[in-house]
């Protein structure tokens, strides 16, 4: 069935409405384009470094076996390589490293750096002070133990002498999921915890699995990784709170993951695959 032919008045109204629609369309498009233009790419705002052409990276532990093999990026290591790859992806010429205490990093004091790469695990508490990027590495809890120590299940883990640090997000995991029979030795940070472990005053230390694997790989005569617990944790870059660079850093990490750069760095610097580490279930205690 065909519509009746509209009267001239209706046609005039339609014509005006069409003109108005076109004008609104052009206006809205112009507004939208102006809102979106500027220093933007599809991957986010263009990276704005603290110093032009330089990616300034803060880290706490230098050297950190597997992650920062020396005090400069050229010395190698997973996070050193990641810093270089990020700089290249973001169109920056070089990387500079500043050492900042771990407690300062998680408190949002990055020492004037663009970002921190320091085996940091995002937590809601830390997110109050810093912005975290998307994780670049999965990092469930891993048990670093002395070479002569063994445990196959959570009951075995309970028998061990543990050392924990006050600033670590993994301390509650030891206390709540492992529940050691003896009170763990409590120290300030990871450096002290490792010293206690090396001295033999403790037998086990809970670390992010990639960190544990790297430390075990660097000193195979003394350490090994007993097992891993299940968890969704990951290691991420920290950026100053409210940083405009977060989106483009996220996109860069996605790109480096997708093109295999991060896998290559893991293979080169972190050795044993986390898939080869036995999983120890702790739910049975619940």
């Amino acid at each position: 069935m065909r519509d009746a032919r509209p009267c001239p008045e209706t046609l005039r109204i339609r014509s005006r409405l069409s003109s108005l629609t076109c004008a609104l369309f052009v206006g809205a498009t112009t507004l939208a384009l102006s809102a979106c233009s500027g220093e933007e790419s599809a991957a986010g705002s263009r990276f704005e470094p603290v110093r032009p052409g330089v990616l300034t990276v803060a880290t706490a532990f230098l050297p950190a076996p597997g992650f920062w093999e020396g005090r400069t990026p050229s010395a190698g290591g997973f996070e050193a390589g990641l810093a270089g790859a990020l700089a290249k992806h973001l169109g920056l010429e070089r990387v500079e490293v500043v050492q900042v205490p771990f407690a300062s990093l998680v408190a949002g004091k990055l020492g004037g750096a663009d970002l921190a790469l320091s085996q940091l695990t995002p937590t809601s508490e830390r997110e109050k002070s810093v912005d975290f990027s998307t994780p670049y590495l999965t990092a469930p809890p891993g048990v670093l133990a002395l070479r002569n120590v063994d445990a196959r299940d959570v009951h075995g883990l309970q028998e061990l002498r543990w050392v924990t640090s006050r600033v670590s997000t993994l301390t509650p995991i030891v206390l709540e999921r492992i529940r050691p029979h003896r009170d763990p030795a409590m120290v300030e940070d990871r450096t002290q915890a490792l010293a206690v472990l090396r001295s033999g005053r403790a037998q086990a230390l809970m670390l992010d699995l990639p960190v544990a694997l790297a430390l075990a790989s660097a000193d195979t005569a003394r350490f090994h990784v007993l097992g891993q617990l299940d968890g969704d944790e990951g290691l991420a870059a920290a950026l100053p709170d409210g940083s405009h660079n977060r989106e483009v850093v996220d996109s860069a990490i996605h790109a480096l993951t997708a093109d295999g750069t991060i896998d290559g760095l893991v293979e080169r610097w972190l050795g044993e695959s986390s898939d080869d580490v036995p999983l120890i279930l702790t739910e049975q205690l619940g």
Partner: protein
Amino acid sequence: MPLYAIQTPSGEVLEFFVLFAVILLGPIVFNRLGLPGLIGLVLGGFAIGAHGLGLIAAGNHTVPELGHLGLLYLMFVAGLELDLQVLKEYRRAAVAFGLIAFVIPFIGGVTIGFALGWSLPATCLLGALLSSHTLIVYPTIREAGLSGNPAVASAVGATVLTDTIALVILAIVAGTQTGSGSPQVIVAEIAIGLVVLLVVGLLVLPRAVDAALRQWGSDRVARYLVIMVALLLMAMLAQVFGIEGIVGAFFAGLALNRLVPNEGPSMERIEFFGAAVFVPVFLVSIGLLLDPSVMFTGHTLGLAALLVTAALGGKAIACWLAGPLLKFNRLETLAMYVLTIPQAAATLAATLIGFEIGLFGTSVVNAVLVLILVSIIVSALITQRVVVRLLPGHAGSAALGAKVLVVTPSTGPSDAAVRAATLIARPDGGHSNVLITRTASEPRPDPGDVRALEKRIFSHGFDGHVRTEIAVLSDAVRHAMIAGEASLVIVDDPTFDASPGPLPLLVLDGASTDGDARQLIADGDGTEVAAEIERRLARGGKPRRMPALR
């Protein structure tokens, strides 16, 4: 019992609880508000995600991984549900409209990308994601009996073209961004991959799955798993060649289209799991990405406005051009529009993959989510008006093999009858059912015998329901003719005789190997139907003569 054993809920059980609570309640709440249920799933995902209540943490892998499987499933079902018969009938209109509906939004997307100074891969991906569309409102239109309308059929057919081109562009962009070779090598690799997918999808997979279903098909679980394995195999094969898994999943759906009839029990099971778990989890996983701090910024909203304009405006221009060209009236053109504006599956796939490979930031993802919500709402609202005014069109009558009913005496169907039903149903994407009649004095079939019967008939490619009824065979046939639910009735009893009725009746002698041992009873001139039956039955083995006509 010590009270300190009471703990705050946490861990996987809590995450699965909130996930399935959202899947249950999200659509219910939004349907009550008169909005599409899938918006409830996306917003529910946001509510439980890291940017909402934080019940599912940012580092959670389970929900995104299940969501990825859901995306594969969604694309697979899109390929599986396509009515290839309708597509074949309106292929020219579908190709013409598909090209126009792809090119115009693509140009819009590319223009926006270049205007904003984006890189070439990001610009092409934006064009591709705006050009694709998802047949979200098609079930509503199909239920209104409009699937045979030429404009509807053309729009459905056009989807194959737009989504395939969009997914190929996605494959090329993703391959060049993540591969380590030169662009030429990667494009060549993808081209080889597409050829392999086509060859496997057209030649190998249907035969392999058919053989597997004939072997294990009587076990419903095994039947479903064979189909799932086929889907994942194609997705994996696509990835081997650097092509996104969703392309393989879509090809898998097309490959199994004939083997899994749209109204058969296998499809019911596929749709059940899709609707209950896989697709909702995918939509919830999208909601996890919603970040109000990113979405409600001038930049994201401006970008969203541009995307909405390019997608909805581009499709409007495409319909406005294609409608008169294909001689469709305004209402039919509007039907094409509502079918082609919803952006969901391929759009989300392209966006998420762009995000995962670092091409798109969270601003683009959130702008696309706004586009998806707007396009679905607009299309759902217009569809309600279209379905009450649009005429069904001449293709509305059921195809010969749409629903074949085999009526047998208590001895059950012969192999020949089941084989004939399958051969007649498959070309139309239809399915067959078996009705076994018995007298009141005959005992109920033993469950063991029923299982043996199912095993036998599934080995002939059967995909339907078997039921028994206390009735005389001739009465059961008469009831089927009156009900008119079947498109063809096969009577597995050579002694049966009846006058021609509203449906064609094929009378078979299952015990005979003679091609003449069948008779077609059809109203009016049944020569064409008889010839068509003969042509289809000839595919199953040696050519036979046309059934005798009465």
